Structure formats: C-alpha cells, structure tokens
C-alpha cells in the first residue's frame, strides 16, 4: 500500500484526484492527507509520512519547489524515509516544470492524466523510478539539445548519451515504457535505468544553459 499526500491549492481538484485514486487504486494507493499550501504540505508530510507526494507546481507560499526544500530540511525529518515527489500540474511552462524536477521531483505528469495512468506513475515513483510524460521528455531534449560539441567541465552530467536521447525521443513520441523497451530491444529495467540517469543529469547538471534555457527560450 502506497501512502499518498495530495498537495494542490484547488479543493475541487484535490477532491477529484482523491476520488479517482480511491476508485481506481483501491488496495494499491491510500490517500493519507490533503494540503492546500506550502506550510500545510510540510505539516502533512511530517505527520503522515507518505511514500509519495502529489505536488502541484504552482502553490501559495513559493511553489512546489518550496515544499520539497522545506520537507528536506524539516527538523526531525527522517533522512532515510523522505517521500518521493511527483509533480502534477496544469501549467506546462517549461521553466516551472524543469525547476520542479531540479528541485527534487521524480517525475512530472499533467493534470489531464487518466486515473490508471496516474496510479502506475505513483507506483513507479514510489519504487524510486522516474516518470516522464511526453511533454517533459520534449523539454529535456530541448534543454540538452545542440550543445554536444561544447566541451564542458563536467561532461558526463552535461549531455545525454545517444541511448538516453533515443529513450527520451520515444517517450516524447508517446511510447509507453514497455513499447520503448521493445523498440530498442532492451529490457524494461534498462529503460528505467536510462530514465533515472536522465533525471539525475537534469537535477545535477550545473549547465548554465539549463538554468537559463527556459527563460531564454521565449526570446528565440
């Protein structure tokens, strides 16, 4: 049973997700609490110790990023059992999505996601895997695009391998994990490994471009 806390400032949406999770995810997912802003979210996480937090990107009090920062530095927070964060948002603004991932979320899905898909995403995140929606995969490819020949300080973190690029491309094309594995003749486990390593690069890369990319993109 995976304990979940829903963090979103729209009560109606929280109710919808809760109903969906209770209907489609009975026996798999249990909604422990809801929260409407950053402080409530931090409280709820400290109190209920969920496995997964469904986190809205836009949240009163500094956004979802702030929740992740505060939970990590909460006094008495058990370092061994921090929850995993899954960003769930209606905003497709690239800088917010990338910012949330860099803030520590293990994945990003849009609010139009169907119930069963959401539950499988929650499961994946709870297992420590990464969840990429096609749109996030597109953002990732965009962010890492075109700078392969630039020699950077930390090369490994600053670019995607050809294989990771292929995986991202297939995800962006709407392939499910299983289909990606079949298409590239690799195991699902390997696909998951690639995804986790892309996520790690996205979070750790100090590439200046990555930080500025989102805001510059508007000007191009």
């Amino acid at each position, binding site marked *: 049973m995976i304990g979940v806390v829903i963090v979103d400032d729209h009560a109606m949406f929280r109710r919808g997700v809760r109903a969906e999770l209770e209907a489609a995810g009975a026996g798999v997912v249990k909604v422990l609490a809801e929260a409407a802003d950053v402080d409530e979210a931090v409280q709820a996480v400290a109190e209920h110790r969920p496995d997964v937090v469904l986190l809205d990107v836009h*949240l009163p009090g500094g956004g979802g990023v702030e929740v992740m920062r505060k939970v990590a530095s909460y006094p008495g927070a058990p370092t061994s059992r921090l929850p995993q964060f899954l960003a769930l948002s209606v905003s497709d603004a690239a800088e917010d999505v990338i910012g949330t991932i860099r803030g520590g979320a293990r994945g990003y899905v849009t609010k139009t996601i169907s119930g069963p898909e959401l539950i499988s995403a929650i499961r994946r995140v709870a297992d420590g895997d990464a969840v990429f929606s*096609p749109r996030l995969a597109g953002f990732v490819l965009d962010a890492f695009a075109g700078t392969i020949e630039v020699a950077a300080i930390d090369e490994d973190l600053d670019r995607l391998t050809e294989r990771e690029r292929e995986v991202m491309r297939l995800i962006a*094309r709407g392939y499910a994990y299983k289909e990606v594995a079949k298409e590239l003749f690799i195991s699902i486990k390997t696909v998951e490994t690639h995804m986790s390593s892309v996520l790690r690069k996205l979070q750790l890369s100090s590439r200046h471009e990555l930080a500025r990319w989102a805001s510059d993109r508007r000007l191009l």
Partner: protein
Amino acid sequence: MTTAPARAGHEPRRATRDLHEPIIGGVASGLARHLALPVLWIRVAFVVAAALGGLGIAFYAGLWLLLPAGEQFETAAPGLESASRGGRRPGRIRRLTDVGPIVVLAALGIGVVFTLEAIVGRGALLWPIAIGLVGIALLWRQADEAQRERWLDTTGRIDPARVILGDRGWASYARLAAGLGLIGLAVLVFALRSGSVSVALDVTFAAFAGVIGIGFVVGPWIFRLASELTDERAERVRTQERADVAAHLHDSVLQTLALIQKNPGDAATVARLARAQERDLRAWLYVGESTDERTVASALRGVSAEVEDAHGIPVDVVTVGDCDFGEGLRPVVAATREAVTNAAKHAGVPRVDVYAEITAGAVDVFVRDRGRGFDPAVTPEDRYGVRHSIIDRMQRHGGVGEIRSTVGEGTEVHLHLPRPADQEGNGE
C-alpha cells in the same frame, strides 16, 4: 540566434541591460545580446578599455545610466503572471556562487588602483575616486534590484521604502549601507588630503550638509511626481487588466458556454467543445503557445488543433527545437495534418501523439496512435490519404514518409524532410 523577434514586428530593436544574472550592472551581457557577440568579448573589451585610461569605466557607467533595464514589461502568459504575483511560483534562489564574480571584481579593482598608482604615481585623487566609484556602483545596483522588485509589485502604489530597499532583504540593506559608507569614505579620504583632521571633518560635514540641503529643496517635487505616477500607473494597470480579461472571457469562454447550452444532449459535441476550450484557455493562461504559421512548431500545433476540433479527439503535440516556417516546409505540415486526420478518423482511440524534432538539418515528425492499426501491404489503392497525401507528397519534396502499423497495436507515421539550405541557421 535572436533574429526572429526583430523580424516579427516593425519595432526597432533596443539594447537593454540584462538583469537576469548581472555581474555589475548587466551592461556587458545586454550589449552582447544586442550585438549578437559572445559576452566574453564584450567583457574583455570593457576591461581593456578600462585599463586604457579608464575609458571603459566611463563607457560602462554611461551605458548603465542610459540603457533601460531589460524586459521591463516582458510579459509571461497571464496565468503564470498571476501565479507569480500570488507567490505560487518558485522565486529566484541565491547561491553562494553568486558572490564569486563580486569578489573577483573587487580584487581586480584593487589591483587596478595599485597598478595605476605605480604608473601615475601617488595621485591623491585616485583613492577617493576609486572608492566613490565602487560606492556609486553599489547604489546603482541596489536601484536595479529595487526596480525589479517594483515590476513584481502589483499594488501599483509607489512605496518610498520599497523604491529604495526593494525586497528589504539583508542584501539590500548591505548594498545600501556599503554604498553610502563608501561614498562617505571617499569624501573623507578626499578631505584628508590636507593632512588636518579638523579640516577634513569640516569638508565632510559641508559635503553632507550640501546633500541634505539639496534633498530638502528637491524632495517635495520628487514626492509629488511619485504620487502622480502612482495614480497613473494604478489606473492604467486596472484598465488593462479589466480589458484583457473581459475580452478573453467574452471571446472564448462565453462562446463555448453558449454552444454547450445549445447542445446539451450531444455528449460528443460537448466533450469536443470542452476540450477545445480547455486547450485555448490553457494556451492563453500558461504557455502562450501560438498556433499561427510563423514557425514550424506553431504551424504543427495549428493543424493539430484543427483536427482536434474537427474530430473531437485530443492531439498532444510535443516539439523540440523550432525554426521559421517557409514554403519549403509546407509539405511536412500538410502531411502531418493528413496523418493526424487519419489517426483521428480510423484508429478509434481517444488520443493521438504528435512529436516533432526540428534540427538544423531536417524536420522529423512522428504521429502515433494506439488504435486498431492496419496492414500497409494490403491498403487498397483507393485509400488516397495514405499513399498520395503522405508518402508521395514527402517523396516529391525530397523527404521520406514511412508508415509502421501493426494490426491491434496502432500506427506510427514518420515524416522526414531535409531543411532547405536557405533556412539554416535559424534553428535552435
């Protein structure tokens, strides 16, 4: 690199200072962007010019004074702006590394002063001028920070404390105190030239008294100007906001609601209308993604939206990279429309994915559905859609159209079109 906006409108391009991550005043990076040169060149040029008799410093200060701060009214989509105003989006995070350039600059500055002293001799004016310059730079920097804060301010009122202190963070106070202190120190050092402390104090007091006197004389004018500006700004902001929201609501949401009321019994129509309205509102509020024919990505979104409206099936478009949309690229967009239409009509699924990758060399589009699929080998000749509109069309224009389909698993159409040579260089 940034040629697209220049072509888009008839407004002349204006150089602005870049306040995203300024090292001193953002002049060099703003200039670099304006001139499309590497920012390092500009910085080196400034440093070299500064070494040559201080011309660079004067030039930098002049540009700092005259260039407007960048993107003052560079607006995000309304939904994002509102989220920023409400504090629902993450703000900037300062890291310790941000201080690095400042330390380097300070070290450089001290080095320059010592070098000058070695060359010119122990000029009595040098130190006060150097200290004063740093003080002024700090105060100007604070003015920039405060200005940035004001843009984020929604009350529309001009709060005197806010004008000076900005976000009231410790950094603001530190900058302000350090700047004023340095200027005071410069005056003091200058006054100390005579060697007598009492004379120096007299001169310093005289200088401050002069400043305070000018403040008293000019103060009321500035105050009145500020309050008038406040009223004007508040009124303008209110009017614009009302007009924007009203126009948008009227244009789209009300229309859709009216249509939905007309077709309450038709679930398919209602779903389609709701989906179209959702897409529209989302684009308006959050993404600001266009669907016109200015760029390839935007044209692809446009045709997908049309199919979505016509067939009532959501089409998710993900694009990577972009370039200007020209006649040479029209075939790939037309073929995409055909492929998406086919998927929407025949696949029998509630969703179609479109993925486009636009690189410097080519445009690749993938249209995928998880529908019933078909066997391409046995497609009847009369199925013009596939053969004629997609494969033949792509071949005629030097591209490739490829269809992979498995019965029961779905179909994927891959369109590949090399980009005409004259369009190269615009992609990013």
